[in-house]
């Protein structure tokens, strides 16, 4: 027979259980709400109208392609900037910087990771955007590139922090073994340390970029908010609008229950699916069954 745990233990167990179940319940409720408000859009606006290039809700044009592409371009631009910068910084902190500099840089990165994005947006409007306009002689500094730069700023601290941990966990013996056969410090980093930390670094990149996909405030403040199709070669240097920014800026004025309202929720569902996919990929990388060789390694 199972032994009875003492009363306080049972109360604590129940309490934790309740907390766990209720958080699952809330997520399910949110999901239900999202779907029940967003699903009608599919019936009210035919799919072929949704997949058009014109977003102009006042005249019932609900083409979401410019928003989707806007999000894509900004995020892609951010990833292209944030991945090399983030991984490079992590390598610098973990492999190159002397001890005292590490002591300063590591907490600094953690602080930056918690920096509110509205503040970043503010800096974007005050500094990045005018700077970019002058440097590149653009008609306006509120462009996709400005958004990408800010999102990169949001993603980089996360990438640095996680990738640095992964590099730190590579046994010192690997580096020494590589030096012992005459490899230089850079050959060792490139040929041994980074490959050994591969899955951790990949995780850092996914989490960092994932964080920037759902980001709203900073992007809304600096991308110019123009729902036009970003197709020309100069798309990165013109104003665009992302899905998150569309929801945030239009949800306040829309009539509850209208088609516009439903379509905004549909965009929310799409965003939800995208971040779900990112999270599943990340989890699969981290929790996948390690290969035999990797198990022995760790």
């Amino acid at each position, binding site marked *: 027979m199972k032994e009875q745990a003492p009363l306080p233990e049972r109360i604590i167990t129940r309490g934790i259980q309740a907390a766990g179940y209720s958080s699952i319940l809330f997520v399910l409720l949110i999901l239900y709400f999202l779907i029940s408000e967003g699903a009608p859009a599919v019936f009210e606006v035919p799919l072929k109208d949704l997949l058009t290039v014109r977003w102009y809700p006042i005249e019932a044009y609900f083409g979401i392609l410019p928003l989707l592409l806007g999000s894509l371009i900004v995020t892609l631009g951010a990833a292209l900037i944030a991945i090399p910068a983030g991984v490079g910084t992590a390598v610098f902190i973990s492999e190159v910087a002397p001890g005292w500099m590490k002591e300063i840089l590591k907490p600094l990165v953690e602080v930056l990771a918690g920096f509110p994005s509205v503040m970043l947006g503010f800096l974007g409007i005050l500094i990045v955007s005018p700077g970019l306009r002058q440097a590149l002689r653009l008609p306006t500094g509120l462009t996709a590139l400005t958004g990408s730069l800010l999102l990169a700023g949001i993603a980089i601290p996360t990438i640095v922090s996680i990738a640095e941990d992964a590099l730190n966990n590579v046994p010192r013996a690997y580096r020494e*073994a590589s030096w012992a056969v005459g490899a230089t410090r850079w050959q060792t980093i490139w040929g041994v340390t980074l490959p050994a930390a591969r899955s951790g670094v990949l995780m850092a990149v996914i989490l960092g970029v994932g964080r920037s996909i759902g980001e709203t405030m900073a992007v809304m403040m600096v991308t110019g908010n123009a729902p036009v199709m970003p197709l020309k070669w100069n798309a990165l240097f013109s104003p665009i609008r992302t899905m998150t920014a569309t929801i945030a800026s239009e949800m306040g004025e829309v009539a509850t229950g209208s088609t516009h309202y439903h379509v905004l929720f549909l965009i929310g569902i799409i965003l939800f699916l995208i971040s779900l996919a990112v999270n599943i990929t990340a989890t699969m990388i981290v929790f996948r069954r390690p290969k035999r060789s990797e198990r022995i390694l760790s």
Partner: protein
Amino acid sequence: MDIILITGFSLSYADGTEGLKNITLGIPANQITVMLGPAGGGKSTLMRAINRLNDLADVISMTGSIIVDGLDVNDPKTNLVELRRKVGMVFARPVPLPLSIRQNITYGLEVAGITDKNRLEAVVEQTLKDAVLWDEVKDRLDSPGVALSGGQQQRLCLARTLALDPRVILLDEPTSGLDPISTAKIEDSLQLLKKRYTIVLAPHSVQQASRTADFAAFFLQGELIETARGKDLFTMPKDKRTQDYVEGRFG
């Protein structure tokens, strides 16, 4: 002729341990020099110092000098890559790089800029034979090095070191994970290899030391107690502590 000259060398770790105290020792070329002594004697510390591999360890001070083939090891101007191509090292705990068996051996050559496929292949086969591992792995050269058994990993690391064709090979307990038959094969192989290389060996037993030594040095708690040519250290030790150790009274 001595290829390595160690003069008044001392080393301390950050936690206050005096790893080596005022060591003066010459290591003769093309012979097997055996460094023996009980645990914590400083054998591994000295080997790592000869190859300047202490940079990542918590070493706070080094005094005295180590000259390898004319190269001052602790001179900041010394090219460490050049030093480590001259002096190869096999660690007590084998560390295959997270690469395939073949790549583990070719890595050192590739970082040195050698890419000729045929030459690399030849080196892989020759060094694996010298390290008595070829027969066991010749059919799976592309599987990961870490998937080998501990003893095989040790021999892989020996092959990896031989691939660089160094002047000196430092072997820290290279047979600690091996059965008696493989151990005997490695010891035979060392007798052949010493024609080409200078070998410094921390043996895993006094028996192995006396079997292999051309020159022997006895270490105790960071001090060099006694050195002797040939088997003299084992047959007629001068110091009481050496005698106690080689006769198995402690250690």
